[in-house]
C-alpha cells in the first residue's frame, strides 16, 4: 500500500502539473481539495481519467468521487480494492 501511495502522489503531480510540489510534500491524509493541495473541479475530472487510464477503474457515480478523492489514503485504498490493471 505504501508503494501505491507514493506512485499515486507522483502521478498526481505529473498529471495535474503541480509546480514546486514534490512527493514528500504530500501527506497521506492531506485533503486533496480545498485547503490541502488546492485542487479544482477540472483536476477532479483529471483524477477520474487517471483512475481509468492507469488502474482500469471507471467511476460512474460522481457522488463516489467526494469520498474517494478525499486524500491519498482514501484514493489508494479504493484503487487497491477495485483495480483491474
Amino acid at each position, binding site marked *: 500500500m505504501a508503494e501505491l501511495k507514493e506512485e499515486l502522489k507522483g502521478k498526481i503531480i505529473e498529471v*495535474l*502539473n*503541480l*509546480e*514546486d510540489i514534490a512527493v514528500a510534500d504530500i501527506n497521506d491524509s492531506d485533503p486533496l481539495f480545498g485547503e490541502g493541495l*488546492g485542487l479544482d473541479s*477540472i*483536476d477532479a*475530472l*483529471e483524477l477520474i*481519467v487517471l483512475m*481509468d*487510464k492507469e488502474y482500469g477503474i471507471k467511476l460512474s457515480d460522481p457522488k463516489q468521487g467526494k469520498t474517494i478523492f478525499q486524500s491519498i489514503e482514501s484514493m489508494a485504498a479504493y484503487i487497491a480494492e477495485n483495480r483491474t490493471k
Partner: protein
Amino acid sequence: MMVSYINKYCVVAKERVVVDAEEQFTSKDDSFSAFVKEAFKQRNSSYPKFFKMDSLSKLGMLAAEYTLAEESTDDLALVLVNKFGSLDTDVKHQESIQDGDHFFPSPATFVYTLANICAGEISIRHQLQTENIFFVADQFPVKVVSAYADYLLASGKAKRVLCGWIDFFQEKYEAVLYIVSPEGEKQHTEENIASLFRTLED
C-alpha cells in the same frame, strides 16, 4: 475623432521578453515550456494555476504579466488576435481521442480548445470585468483593432485597452501587447502600432 495613445508595450519572441524597448528577460533555453516558466517566475509571480495552462494561455499570461506590472487595471478591456487560434491544443486533444482503444481525452487539455480562454485567464489573473474579444486572422488587423480600441474608449466602455497579438503553434510563438489610453505621449496610430510589430523581426 478620438485621439488615443500607446502607453506601454511588451514583445515576447525568440526566448526574450522586451518591455518598452528594454530587454527584461532572456533565456538560453530554446524550449518554450522552459522559457515561459523561467520568465514567469522571474516576475516573482506566485500563481500555481499558470503551470496548468496550455501554451497559448501561458504566452498570453506572460506577456500580460510584464505589460501590466505597476499598471492600473481599472476598467481595462482586452482586444486580442492571433493566427492559429487554439490549434496547438486542438491537435493535442485530437491525438488523445484518435485511438478508440486508448480513448483518454484530458479535461485539462479540452478546456483550452478555444482561443478566448487565453483572454479569460488574463482577465481572472488581473481581475478584469470588462469587454474582451479575441479575433483570429492571418495577420494583425491594425485598422480593426485600433478602431475597436478607440470605440471602447470613446464610448466609455473602458478607461484603457490592452491590445495585441498572442500566437502559438507547435513551439513557434510571438506575442505583442500594448496598452491604449486617452492620455500619453506616443500616439496610437497605425504606423506606431506597425513599429511595435517590427520589433518581432529584430
